[in-house]
């Protein structure tokens, strides 16, 4: 049914067109997608914003002085808390391009860092999602299709990997790679690289994708049309490519927004723990971490990135639900936590 619509052009509406039409009528899903794209666009404009604002969001700028309504205001002002010792970064100026959300404890423009941070978070989550989907699908395909020993070994391994609590696994992997990076043969990744969180988060969620895919492939493997193909002498890899893979694409597509949402939460948690994105680079998680010390005096620094994460995750979820309802309403794929 569905794979025929992909392989041969049809005059009647194929399942993709039907699904698209259904999705288009789901107002919540469409609105969520719009919000998400807005967020992405805003973050992509981070370098432009920083340039326009004239700030460097990565350098410590404790002596900076900015102009508000013509008056010179130092970015770090005399603290009025407690004994009046030390400095407090200024609060929000509510002027775009001019420390809109105020400064953090290093004197950096929080708004600019937010945009750059969003970019990091989105990039890492997206890349990790792709990584997980590729590796997870491969594992699921191989285990489900070839069965036997291959399946047993792979499944046991996936079971153990999955039983390992996600954050603990991520912590373990991070701690041995963060300090020195990875060098396996020709692959060299430095310690500050954003690839490290991508790979770590990617690996950690592989069983999340591999196991349902394996289940689907297994039942497809025993379906009549595959049985017919095998009897006709079609080689294994061709069956995988032409018969099995197209039938799992809807599951994979539904996974994308849901996994991105999960990954954003995981990445921000790891960054908050200082084992994700490393300074001076920013991600929403690191900004919350920065904001911890300033929580009672300049709460916006910690509040805004969290809000941003919450909104992003929410809209990704709503869109993912809508996508699933349009493509595959009987699917059991749902957002879980950790």
């Amino acid at each position, binding site marked *: 049914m569905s794979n025929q619509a992909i392989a041969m052009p049809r005059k009647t509406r194929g399942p993709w067109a039907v699904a698209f039409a259904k999705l288009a009528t789901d107002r919540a899903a469409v609105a969520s997608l719009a919000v998400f794209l807005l967020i992405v666009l805003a973050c992509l404009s981070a370098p432009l914003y920083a340039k326009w604002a004239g700030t460097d969001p990565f350098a410590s700028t404790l002596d900076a002085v900015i102009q508000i309504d013509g008056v010179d205001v130092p970015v770090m002002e005399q603290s009025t808390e407690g004994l009046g010792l030390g400095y407090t970064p200024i609060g929000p100026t509510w002027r775009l391009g001019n420390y809109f959300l105020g400064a953090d404890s290093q004197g950096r423009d929080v708004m600019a860092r937010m945009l750059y941070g969003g970019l990091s978070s989105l990039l890492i989550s997206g890349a990790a999602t792709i990584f997980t989907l590729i590796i997870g699908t491969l594992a699921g395909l191989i285990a489900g299709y070839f069965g036997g020993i291959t399946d047993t070994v792979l499944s046991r391994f996936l079971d153990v990997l999955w039983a390992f609590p996600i954050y603990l696994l991520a912590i373990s992997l991070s701690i041995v790679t963060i300090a*020195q990076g*990875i060098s396996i043969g020709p692959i060299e990744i430095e310690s500050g690289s954003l690839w490290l969180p991508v790979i770590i988060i990617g690996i950690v969620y592989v069983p999340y994708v591999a196991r349902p895919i394996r289940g689907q492939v297994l039942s497809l493997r025993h379906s009549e049309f595959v049985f017919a193909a095998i009897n006709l002498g079609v080689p294994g890899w061709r069956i995988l490519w032409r018969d099995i893979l197209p039938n799992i694409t809807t599951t994979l597509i539904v996974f994308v927004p849901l996994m991105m949402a999960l990954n954003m939460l995981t990445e921000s948690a790891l960054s908050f723990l200082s084992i994700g994105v490393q300074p001076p680079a920013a991600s929403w998680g690191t900004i*919350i971490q920065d904001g911890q010390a300033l929580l009672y005096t300049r709460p916006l620094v910690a509040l805004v990135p*969290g809000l941003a994460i*919450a*909104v992003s995750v*929410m809209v990704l979820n709503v869109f993912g639900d809508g996508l699933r309802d349009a493509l595959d309403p009987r699917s059991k794929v749902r957002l879980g*936590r950790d």
Partner: protein
Amino acid sequence: MIYAILRRFGQMLFVMFGISVIVFLIFFATPGADPAARIAGRNASPEVLEAVRHSFGFDQPLYVQYVKMMEKIFVTGDLTSFVNRGWRVVPAVMDSIPVTLSLVFGAAILWVVVSIIIGIVAAATRGSWLDKLLMALGLLGISMPVYWLGEVMNLITQSRYHDNWAFSWVPPLGYKNFSDDPKGWFLTLVIPWITLAILYIGIYGRVLRAAIIESMQEDYIRTARAKGLSETRILLRHALRTSLIAFVTLFGLDFGALVGGSALLTEVVFGLHGIGKLTYDALQNLDLPMIMATVMYASMFVVIANAVVDFVYILLDPRLRTS
């Protein structure tokens, strides 16, 4: 039924072994740096490095190293931290476990009770504004990063509204031992419990609602109606009871993971010195021996918790007992 439980138990042991091997491989066999240097920390003198090498058996084959590691973590418990010189890691981990358990069990009870209520109400009022509101709140709950929510709670209860009648009872951040000060123990945990629970109430309410609604379409519900039972009884005794199975399965998956994830973050934010906070501090200092121990113990707890939940599942669903 005994057979099913025994089989699950065997699986649990296998998984524990598997995890210990993975932990071992990650810490001892990741290419890139000398494992001794990692364990001994930065600025370790050559003698210390040599001592570490010997004690962990880096000059010997991998399986010997594995055995030595397991020995140190579980049997002799004389794994020592090099960052805080000589601090014996395993007892520290053991001391922190009650704190984590207090947090996790209290939050779990709160989240299970509230989410069951929400799930039932949402399913019973399906389609109404109440249902939609509950589901939207649930969605919000699972979208917020837990540590951020904790910070927000702190901001409200410790700072902005602390003098308000609503929150003046909230004690400063930290943990009080149950044996020393039960009331204090309870008060310090209330806000963390609520924080953790909010996250899960969201998903669980949604899951239960979906499971109940699905159950209500089943044939046996039609039979129950034909019997002349009231809708309430049908909902609670037939649909809910069968839906609880899905609920428990999910609970099992999440409760264990809670320890390694959200609980860890919650402890950090609220200053509770459980196994999570211990891990966090060790992370800041790159104290590998401590992290190895916390990761191992926490993972083992998770695996055991998952197995226990499966045992409960076998007890709940009669169809599993005889298979």
